[in-house]
């Protein structure tokens, strides 16, 4: 890999990013459209899922079936996601089919058919998605946690709310697409085997337009409750816990990442050792860094049988609180090696790189090179991590549980 980033900006402001990878025959691309859950009008929670489905049900001069067939014929591994800030649509494929795939995605984004009958089906699937969350408490607890932790509407569920989905109309959804598919704020990224000049010419031909005004950011509300419990007669209590930390733009960002890695980077990290290995309280236990542009936190999940739930939560909070008391040189070294290694291992995948460079650009306004990230991780140490932790003590924990028994958050 060359660690070189290609960049081009269309006259309308749409940003094109690329990362060439020498060793691969595949290419991956994604369009980040500013239509994430937090940017939707109030009362439309879940509209993002409906939109992501609806735009792929016929576009350009193809109906839903014809569009699906031609995408399948190219062997595309399609991906789409609805996040807090964006709807991202894209694919991974053999490099030779890239130009045809981009033509089709231009149709999906710019010329979706948006037929009324297809809207009803897309909405029904979105409603089913919300109902199915009840059978997946682990995913549900983390969605609920984000909703409670982030100030509204940042943590709004991308999956949706039943009542709001039921009230959603085709007309309203069309208006959201018109307002939010703003090319001036869209980021396109590509990674793997591609010719950047050819890609730029094609994207320019397909997507160049008048510059559009920025729709503006949502105004932030307050955080929701400290502890939320949802009753479910399942086998385990699913515990989600989150506490605030610095954003990716902060100078202490890498100290925060190393600290989270000491807590939960590998199997020798604190949470795994104290909760699972020494006490046998859980099978699944882990914490990770989670960031939006506006706020960030450390997000933790544990699943345990009801009688062990309180002890599990207490031990987890104790580990968070004791982290600033002291960290050994060995622990920091393992945390750093783990972070650097996962960075390089993920750099071999075209999909992973296409996602990372676009995410960087959105968060930071530029793409970090792998060398820069490595250097910043290298520069952290016991002293800097402890100074960060002591200056940013964990205090407010947002906790959500789903299961047959409540816990007490002390």
């Amino acid at each position, binding site marked *: 890999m060359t660690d070189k980033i290609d960049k081009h900006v269309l006259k309308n402001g749409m940003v094109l990013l690329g990362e060439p990878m020498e060793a691969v025959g595949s290419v991956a691309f994604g369009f980040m459209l500013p239509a994430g859950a937090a940017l939707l009008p109030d009362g439309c929670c879940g509209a993002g899922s409906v939109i992501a489905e609806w735009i792929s049900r016929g576009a350009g001069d193809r109906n839903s079936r014809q569009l699906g067939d031609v995408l399948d014929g190219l062997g595309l591994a399609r991906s789409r996601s609805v996040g807090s800030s964006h709807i991202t649509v894209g694919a991974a494929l053999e490099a030779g089919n890239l130009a045809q795939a981009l033509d089709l995605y231009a149709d999906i984004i710019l010329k979706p058919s948006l037929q009324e009958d297809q809207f009803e089906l897309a909405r029904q699937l979105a409603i089913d998605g919300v109902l199915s969350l009840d059978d997946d408490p682990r995913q549900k607890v983390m969605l609920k946690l984000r909703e409670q932790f982030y100030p509204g509407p940042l943590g709004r569920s991308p999956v949706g709310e039943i009542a709001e989905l039921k009230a959603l109309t085709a007309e309203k959804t069309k208006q959201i697409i018109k307002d939010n598919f703003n090319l001036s704020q869209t980021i396109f990224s590509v990674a793997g085997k591609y010719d950047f000049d050819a890609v730029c010419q094609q994207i320019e031909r397909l997507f160049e337009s008048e510059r559009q005004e920025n729709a503006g950011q949502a105004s932030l509300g307050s955080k929701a409750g400290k502890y939320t419990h949802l009753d479910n007669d399942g086998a385990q209590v699913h515990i989600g816990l989150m506490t605030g930390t610095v954003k990716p733009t902060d100078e202490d960002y890498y100290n925060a990442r190393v600290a989270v890695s000491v807590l939960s980077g590998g199997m020798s990290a604190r949470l795994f050792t104290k909760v699972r290995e020494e006490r046998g309280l859980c099978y699944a236990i882990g914490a990770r860094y989670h960031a939006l542009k506006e706020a960030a936190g450390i997000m933790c999940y544990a699943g345990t049988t009801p009688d062990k739930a309180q002890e599990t939560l207490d031990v987890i909070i104790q580990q968070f609180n004791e982290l600033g008391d002291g960290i050994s040189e060995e622990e920091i070294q393992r945390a750093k090696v783990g972070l650097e290694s996962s960075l390089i291992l993920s750099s*071999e995948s075209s999909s992973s790189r296409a996602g990372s460079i676009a995410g960087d650009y959105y968060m930071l306004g530029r793409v970090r090179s792998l060398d820069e990230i490595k250097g910043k991780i290298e520069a952290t140490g016991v002293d800097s991590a402890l100074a960060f932790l002591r200056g940013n003590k964990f205090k407010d924990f947002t906790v959500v549980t789903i299961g047959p028994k409540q816990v007490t958050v002390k």
Partner: protein
Amino acid sequence: MEFKKEQLDNGLCLIGEVNKSAKSAAMGFFVKTGSRDESGQVNGVSHFLEHMLFKGTDKLSALQVNEAFDRTGAQFNAGTSEEYTVYYAAVLPEYLLDVTGLWIELMRPALRDDDFNIEKNVIKEEIAMYKDMPSFDVMDQCRSLHFDGHPCGNSVLGSEESIDNLKSEQMRDYFTRRYAPNNMVLACVGNFNWEQICSFAANSCSKWRRQAVERKLEHYDGSKKKKRAEKSNLAREHICLMSSGLSAQDPRRFAASLLGIIVGDSVGSRFFWELVDKALAEAATMQFGPMDGTGAFCSYIRCSADNVAQVLDTVSGIFQSLSRDGITEDELRKAKNKVLSSLVIKNELPMGRLGDLGSNWLYLEKYRTVEDDISAIKAVTIEDVNVLIGQFKPGDFTQLSIGPGEKNG
């Protein structure tokens, strides 16, 4: 790519595919033992044993093991299936020798009683976790119903009761019989020095003692039983269908895998257009699962309880039309493109390549290049797939569903 192979006197196979342009390397021990090799008294022991290997050796405590792995920055883990148990790691090239050395040590674990007792709790938590995942639970229960006494129906996790009753001596005995060098393969992929890994492994593993190992191989057509279970806290109906398929050794497995894609890929398949596109079901997939000496097609469908009858009618219509008219040229072409493209993308990563390299060796005792697989997929004809439909009758299935309330699934 360069393929390398060496077999030690005790039967341990060392294989490698060297790719000097990769930025990482991956390695794994593939042990040919899984829940199908267990008797009823020790159900769950293969998976429990997989956990216990992380607990260390006579010289290493569990914490020291975890620390040693984390010092290499490895992405490492292990997994147990009905068929085999695999221990793997992906690392930067300079750490491959360290991480291989560590796994070699762990292949001769201490299996201490204290660790066994505390890990029992973790295993029981894992069983509880999967109980809260009905999409997993329904497949697990359907497999047991389908294989109905055949060892391939044994649960990988075991039950709370079988784990409670398991004794550490039984685990040690199972370990001695199954973790014999002649029942294992060490595979390495990516950027690494073969001679170095090979001589290191030869030195360290040559003391391991060969055992007489066997596995019962018997094809089984499946029970075709139908059953429904209720769980009051569920919101959706989870349906699993299983029908007979061919084995991992059968050259027609590529045609079977394409049939799975045509019927039940997550997008663009017959299930997709008839069930998901029409919003009758939220998820509907079918996959071909080749196994040692036998195989199965397995479908998973999730829908509202109100739609169950219509969904099952539609499924039965799809299978009837398949057996009456077969597949189309266009369906086969699209399925091939999808499979070929995902094969290429997966194999670009050493960790992605490791699984195929190791499992091909376990099942076939043969090296197959990615190009061999690509050619085999390209060579599949409509007749090949249609003959399979006629022979295996995917519409003649075992059915298990789990859902809420009182409905007749």
